[in-house]
């Protein structure tokens, strides 16, 4: 995990756990508000995709893990594949130079252990989410009267839950790591 976040060229110290927890709360609050706003806009008909794109952006800027950038090192431990020659970009071709894996991207054995533990914890939450989705889908198809009390369409409710589950899948392991890792020590110690 990195001790600081670089935003718009400014370095933000994130070594303290309280700051990282505040960031996690802020990110999920923003995503919930965004999801609600997109529902109001067009019931996620087209804007549902925007929520997923926003989640990728959150990973890129703040969380990392499944993206380069952000506080958590890439989960696969590999550096970004740099394209050295700009003209190849226009042709959508990429040149992947052979570079050694730098320590900036590679996690050590403790970090790998924490990564795996965070995924285990996230898996449990996602299993519960999938069980709820299965139950709602089952009722929607076979016992629609059980969902009659819902003001919106049950299908829309299930779609919203799927959307939320995707957001959580993409962010929860990183959020768990940011939440649980203790304050980072000074390098000079």
């Amino acid at each position, binding site marked *: 995990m990195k001790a600081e976040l670089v935003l718009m060229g400014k370095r933000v110290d994130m070594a303290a756990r309280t700051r990282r927890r505040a960031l996690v709360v802020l990110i999920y609050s923003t995503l919930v508000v965004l999801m609600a706003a997109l529902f109001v806009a067009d019931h996620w008909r087209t804007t549902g995709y925007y929520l997923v794109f926003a989640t990728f952006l959150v990973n890129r800027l703040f969380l990392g893990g499944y993206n380069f950038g952000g506080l958590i090192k890439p989960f696969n431990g590999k550096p970004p594949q740099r394209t050295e020659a700009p003209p190849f970009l226009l042709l959508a071709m990429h040149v992947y130079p052979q570079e050694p894996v730098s320590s900036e991207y590679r996690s*050590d054995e*403790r*970090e790998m252990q924490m990564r795996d533990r965070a995924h285990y914890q996230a898996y449990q939450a996602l299993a519960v989410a999938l069980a709820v989705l299965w139950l709602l889908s089952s009722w929607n198809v076979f016992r629609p009267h059980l969902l009659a009390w819902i003001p919106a369409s049950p299908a829309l409710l299930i779609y919203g839950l799927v959307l939320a589950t995707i957001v959580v899948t993409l962010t929860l392991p990183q959020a768990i790591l940011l939440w649980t890792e203790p304050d980072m020590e000074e390098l000079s110690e």
Partner: protein
Amino acid sequence: MNENSQREPGESGLYNRIAVLRAERGISRQQLAEAMDVNYQTIGFLERGDYSPSLKLALSLADYFGLPVEAIFSKEPFKPLSQQVYGAGRARLALHTESDLEESA
């Protein structure tokens, strides 16, 4: 300095002498981390006993300090080095000096 050679075993349930050995040799956490090819935070976790190292890392630490693994890690609290080296009878004075040294480190 964080060390757990005689106090709490930490989350790993292991006692270790890494902090003492590092102080003795005047090595910073960063230097040790670079030598072991791990993050410097991991050295802190090891010293506090909050992380149980892999066998490979434990052996690398033993190689680095030129000591057997059991001189660095233990399931039981370590006796002070002076007591181990000089024996219980002669160690009273040395024990006092060493505990002072460890506290000051």
